[in-house]
């Protein structure tokens, strides 16, 4: 599903540059649940941003579902993001003046799907994350765990090939974290490829495979039991 070879990325800082990713080789197959770990500055977020087509890379190659991803213009990147990827953020990033249902339906709006169908699909995913009764609530009326579940439903609504979660439990307490991870696992069990960036060991342990980054290179890559 994800095929990365010799990926390099550096950021210019003044006259010099900061080499963040130093030759990453990574293959992730369909249906995997992968945790990407590392301390801050290890390059894990940069890697996720490149995979998420939010950022470009300098050299190497990146294929997503056999489609080479390189130097996309914004319109194309938007189209691919919408088609291939679902994002889950640490701070949920729901749109605060839209109801739960509208938030979930938003990616479908950008796909140009008719309103009735959007509503139907959004309802479905709302049910899937167990918040069917909260459709008309605004994000401000929901708890952190509920918000993250809405965000996950939104990420899934466009039926992406890969779900990218950047510290999905970073803003949640441990009980809620576990609930959210359970949901992520459940979605993975249904066959969805999921990448979770985290710096918490116990969250990583709930995934099927853990990749540890340090100073821009992969230190370890192992399967959990």
């Amino acid at each position: 599903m994800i095929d990365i070879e010799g990926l390099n990325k550096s950021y210019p800082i003044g006259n010099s540059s900061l080499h963040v990713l130093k030759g990453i080789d990574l293959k992730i197959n369909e249906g995997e649940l992968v945790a990407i770990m590392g301390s801050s500055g290890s390059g894990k977020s940069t890697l996720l941003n490149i995979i998420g087509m939010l950022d470009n890379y300098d050299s190497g190659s990146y294929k997503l579902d056999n489609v080479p991803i390189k130097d996309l213009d914004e319109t194309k990147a938007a189209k691919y993001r919408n088609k291939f990827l679902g994002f889950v953020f640490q701070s949920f990033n729901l749109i605060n003046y839209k109801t739960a249902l509208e938030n979930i339906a938003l990616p479908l709006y950008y796909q140009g799907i008719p309103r009735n169908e959007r509503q139907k699909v959004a309802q479905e995913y709302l049910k899937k994350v167990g918040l069917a009764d909260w459709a008309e609530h605004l994000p401000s009326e929901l708890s952190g765990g509920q918000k993250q579940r809405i965000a996950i439903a939104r990420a899934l609504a466009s039926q992406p090939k890969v779900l990218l979660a950047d510290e999905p439990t970073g803003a949640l307490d441990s009980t809620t974290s576990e609930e959210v991870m359970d949901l992520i696992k459940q979605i993975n069990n249904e066959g969805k490829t999921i990448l979770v960036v985290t710096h918490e060991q116990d969250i990583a342990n709930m995934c099927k495979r853990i990749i540890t980054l340090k100073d821009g290179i992969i230190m370890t890559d192992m399967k959990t039991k």
Partner: protein
Amino acid sequence: MNTVFDKDTWQEIFGSISQNKLRTLITIIGVLWGIFLYIVLSGIAKGVDNGFEQRFERISSNSLFVWTQNTSIPFSGFKIGRNWNIKLSDVETLKNKIPEIQHIAPRIQKGNFGSQGAYISNGTRSGTYNIYGDYPILKVVSQKDIYKGGRFINELDIKEERKVCVIGERTQKELFKDEENPIGKFININGIYFKVIGIHKFFDQGGGSFDDDGDIHVPFSTFKRLYNTGDAVGFLLIAGYDDIDIVEVENKVKIQLKEIHKVHPDDNRAIGSFNLGSFFTRAKNFANGMSFISIIIGIATILAGVIGIGNILLISVKERTKEIGIRRAIGASPNHIRKQIILESVFLTLIAGTIGIILGAFILYVINMATQNLKDVPFTNATVPLSYIFAALLMMIGLGTLIGFIPAEKAISTKPIDALRDE
């Protein structure tokens, strides 16, 4: 373009606009005020235009009066201060020599311009009134409305030098009893009995004519006999064709008259004139100028208002950087974002414009109500043509779109990854 008709597009717009209601309100006041000024000012200009139009509607607007005065330059053997008259024969000469002239109504009068009026009596009632010797053509140049049952002077009256007269409303009131019908009755003018053939209505035209409600009109030929004035004419009322330059005609008439009557060509005091046409043109120009100024002011104010909207949207886009980042992460293309922000801009502009138009129309309505019964103010029916309003709306859509591009491009220029990092 189907996004424009999509319910969600509007939900998006309302969603983002209603986030900061107070700011939105203050923003649209700029455009609102602009269109309001535009509507009110051009409405008033139109009202003034209509007012002048109405004031002149009873007299040919392309006309002028010419009369004689004492000469001020000795010429051709004549002394200075000569008292001369326009002659009846001049009418034909003028008509032949100056093709722009449509009608000439020669008139002669007593009671105006320092001469003494006619002493008129009916039994024990009597008074002194202005008396005019007129031709039927007068009715064509300066509209005369005769009350039912009566008529104006006709050709036969002239030919037969009939002793008939048309009297004014006031004359009727003063010479006749209320219940008495004056038509067919005789009144005594300077000792001679005249039959009343009509009563003319009086319209106050605010200096547009010399008419009075006490006027008495008799056939020119009868007047001539009555006062033994020979071929002398008191003054000429000259009407030109619609599309001619009446000032030019005025000059030609004067030159012609001076030539006929041996008046020095430079003797400007020897001929008096009042050019209704140029007066009318000036009034029209004033109204046109006003409406031009109102358009300029309106456009300038709307422009300032639209720039204000662009400015506020720029701030709003900055504030919503994160939100726009989220939208782009979940698949909004730059075009989606651009469209939404431009639509917001156009929508705000149009809302402001519509409110401004409604308020402006209301104020015009109030002004119309207030001036309805003011006869002294040349102001009637202040309106704004629908085409002006459509033009204004079109301009607002155009400007709203243009100005919307600035914040839209600003929103797009931020990369989604940077936008997402924005806190």
